[in-house]
């Protein structure tokens, strides 16, 4: 039993790492632009599908980089043409817009690639378990963690030390002042949006290796990511990181004792956090009121 619990804790961390990637993208966009991006799951699915289509030409590794960039480009175009018009209005407007986009994405994906799932194959050497004891630690899952660690580490360094990153963080606190100081807020938001979408695209390619590609694949992964943000604290990127890992572990542990509830437990967790600490674990009070 102890083994089983231990396995599931480490396994939960692996799953959580994946949610982190998705939730960080959502969080970036939410924090700076106040947009709750419901189309995030759609961008994720597109990331997987682009990779599927590109892989025969540029290989898995090429697709891993190019596909998220293409998705980010698409995100940029949509931000420039539609989403940016709703900045500063009631957030419900952008929420409805991205909600609609999510449906459009799903149906376009279905029309282009078909409703039937598609197999996405990852390089052979990544698919083997590393040991028979820890069989759930496959090369691919370690690779996923490495990619997440690099992406998250890179993102935090970028936000901490680069001028652009500092501006994004400053904008999260007070966009008006940042604007007054001469920063091109329009560009800043576009870049930030594309960056968030890039993370979604990357998550999509990684998910493709574990799950079959389906038009609805993003929707299943979107809700836990929202939960991760709320548990961790809206407005806090480290909080999102913590939230993602926590819900992964919680779902994994629940599967040991009460498998049917492994889906529901993250929502219970969210409810408890909201009751006891409404700002979320690492959220700052009053930041987003």
């Amino acid at each position, binding site marked *: 039993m102890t083994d089983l619990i231990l396995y599931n804790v480490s396994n939960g961390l692996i799953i959580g790492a994946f949610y982190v990637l998705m939730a960080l993208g959502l969080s970036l966009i939410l924090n700076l632009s106040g947009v709750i991006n419901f189309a995030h799951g759609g961008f994720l699915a597109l990331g997987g599908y682009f990779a599927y289509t590109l892989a025969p030409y540029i290989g898995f590794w090429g697709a891993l980089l190019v596909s998220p960039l293409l998705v980010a480009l698409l995100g940029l175009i949509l931000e420039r043409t539609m989403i940016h018009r709703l900045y500063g209005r009631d957030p419900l407007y952008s929420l409805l817009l991205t909600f609609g986009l999510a449906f459009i994405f799903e149906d376009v994906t279905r029309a282009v690639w078909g409703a039937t*799932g598609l197999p996405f194959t990852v390089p052979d050497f990544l698919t*083997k378990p590393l040991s028979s004891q820890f069989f759930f630690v496959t090369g691919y899952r370690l690779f996923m963690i490495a990619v997440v660690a690099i992406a998250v580490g890179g993102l935090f360094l970028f936000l901490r030390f680069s001028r652009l990153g500092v501006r994004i963080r400053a904008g999260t606190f007070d966009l008006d002042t940042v604007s007054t100081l001469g920063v091109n807020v329009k560009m800043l938001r576009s870049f930030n949006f594309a960056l968030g979408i890039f993370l979604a695209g990357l998550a999509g390619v990684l998910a493709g290796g*574990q799950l079959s590609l389906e*038009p609805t694949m993003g929707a*299943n992964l979107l809700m836990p990511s929202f939960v991760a943000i709320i548990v961790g604290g809206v407005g806090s990127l480290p909080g999102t990181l913590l939230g993602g890992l926590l819900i992964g572990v919680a779902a994994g542990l629940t*599967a040991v004792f009460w498998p*049917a509830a*492994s889906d529901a437990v993250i929502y219970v967790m969210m409810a408890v956090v909201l009751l006891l600490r409404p700002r979320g674990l690492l959220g700052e009070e009053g930041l987003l*009121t």
Partner: protein
Amino acid sequence: MAQVDRRTVLKAGAALAGSALATPAILTYGRGESPVKLGMVDPLTGVYAAVALSEVAGAKVAVEDINKKGGILGREVELLVEDSANNVGTGVQKARKLIDRDRVNCVIGDVNSAIALAMAGVTSEKGVLHIVSGGHTDAVTGKDCHWNVFRVCNTTTMDVNGIADTVIEKLGKKWYFLTPDYAYGHSVQDAFIRKLKAAGGEYAGDLVPLGTADYSAHLIKAKAYNPDVLINVMGGGDQVNSLKQFVGFGLNHQMAVSGTLFELESLRAVPPEALIGWWTMEWWWDQPDNPHVKVFVDKMRKATGHTPSARNWFGYTSVWTFALVANHAKSLEGVKLAHALEGFKLPPEVALQPGTPYYRPGDHELMSTMFAGEAHPAKGNPDNMFTVHSLVPGEKAAGPVAETGCTIHWS
């Protein structure tokens, strides 16, 4: 600057959860002045979209066929397709709409058994013939059977009985279940357990929420139990994802895998290394000795570009059943059609299988042949991913009517 408050995020989440509603209908118009209308309700969006669309594609080909051959009672046939969005409320609402507003003479659907059952409540009350094309739960032709409800696909018990003996004999008697936590999953698992207990085996298992993306936690438990066979009851995308991860963890070297259905739509979605295990097909396209099957396969390939699946056949047969019985009974009235369908035999060009399937009078279940066998990476033809090892007759798999729990009450 902060424009979004926490409550908005919460409301957003609630909205997302309730988003499975309201999707527009897809209309397929026939020609004539007053066509005979057929309504089909299937989950065109959501996890069952792939199989639902296959059923619709089969139904459309049948409608074309029927119209070419003079229609129903000399009138054109028109198919109205509605999306249940994999939601019980939506499915019922669409069934009501088809009957009340569109005045359909027959309702077909749904892939999701829970929706099919709820729809049956509506169709029986309204007196309209209802053919369940692809919802498998026993109750549809079991304890919740209705006078007007007939089913083309198998019951879960039939699917289990079609494979369970093979599993016990060839693979072993210590099982671990991976079962989706809803009516269909429970009913399959119960049927497997009955067989296993009779054979003196042991089991454990997990009930897994529908739409689970990551199966690692459940597979970790499965490995700890160390079974002979993992009985994978997950359906659609869930089945594909769980098998892909099962193979990814190398568990295929430690235990066999089996289950009831591994549909062609799903076979196509897994990479070659995950094409493993013992399953039943409710219909299979590769029947070299049957010329009618070849005609149907060619027709479907022309219409969809794909080799037909069992789901294509379900849709095709459901529509043809209605046309055949209506022409036979010379009526479109629900009660007359239902009486005429009891014991009704499908002709070979619609049956498309060995034997003569018929709708059993006691429970209205189609007694069709099952194809039990093994999945493998494609050989030659890309859709040749399954080898049939045995044919199981419907009556044998279904067991006597008395055991189904069905009593038909004519209204």
